[in-house]
């Protein structure tokens, strides 16, 4: 597939699912925690992303539970989703490494 930078929301959602299935609200709180409160997913954005990720077969429904009379659906990564996230993470890491190295060389961030 085309190597285009993944949207941050997508990246964070996939990351939240990387170590196991989670339900919608679980993803929101997890993403908030991972990002130190910087990324706050809204329900509309989340379900739009989940719908797209399901259509692209990057995530799938793991199981459904009924809690307090409401349906709770758990999502997990598919093998394709795992691979995509791994590729994206490696790519981001490589770029971040270059940025940090150059900053260090320039002496700007040397501490």
């Amino acid at each position: 597939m085309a190597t285009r930078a993944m949207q941050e929301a997508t990246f964070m959602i996939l990351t939240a699912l990387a170590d196991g299935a989670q339900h919608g609200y679980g993803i929101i709180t997890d993403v908030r925690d991972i990002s130190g409160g910087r990324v706050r997913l809204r329900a509309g954005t989340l379900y739009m992303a989940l719908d797209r990720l399901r259509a692209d077969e990057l995530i799938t429904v793991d199981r459904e539970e009924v809690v307090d009379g409401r349906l709770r659906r758990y999502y997990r990564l598919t093998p394709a989703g795992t691979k995509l996230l791994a590729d994206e993470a490696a790519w981001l890491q490589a770029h971040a490494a270059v940025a940090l190295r150059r900053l260090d060389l320039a002496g700007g961030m040397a501490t």
Partner: protein
Amino acid sequence: MTDQEHLERAYRRLLAWYPREFRRENEQEILAVLMADAPDGQRRPGLAESADLIRSGLWLRLRPSVPRSARTVRAAVKLMYAGAAVSTVNLIMLMALIGDAKAYHAMLGYHLTAAQVSQLTTLFITVAIVWALVPIALWLWMARACGRGRNWARIVSTVLFGVATLDLTGAFGPPGFRLSLALTVFGPTISVLYWLVGLAVVWLLWRPSSKAFFRPPGYTQAQHQAQMAESDHQAQMAELARIRTRLPRHV
């Protein structure tokens, strides 16, 4: 009504922006998330939250539901939206030209009374605008239907492209006469580019890689899933039968 009921009712109203199919599948779940995320005592959705729900609802209505695996169909659908965009520009330019035509009529007089002139131009403007809306509607309709894997849409798209091609060559009447399928206000270069968009769409829709995405008429997503589940079930049964044959007789 408690604060919670009040808030839930407001959220339900916002969820009306979502497509029905999506709502049937996800409404309960989204409501649960929205309610869980709302601070105690909140009675109505915040502005940003409402905007986010409306925006994603609209997006879900408009976006093509083509999986990443059907790349050629995705490209075709995008091109069809591009075609709709060009047709829209055509409509806007046409409306600008109509302003001139009105001035032109008024200038010549045509021995018509002022009332007749304004009546004529009103009719002319209405017909021209409706006429220019047709291709926009067709592009959007075809994009949507093809995006949902409707095989008839692939065929209709192709037929429309054929008609548009004949139209461009002036097959349907005196010189200068066009069905609304060909652009009316642009010069030949843009018109040919526009036609090439149509050609690319048809080509993409009939690529072998598009074939799997288009299912026979009347074949719904539910049937597709049922069939998948059925074949899963058959595989499991076959597996069980295989295991049974390996078991000792007396079990």
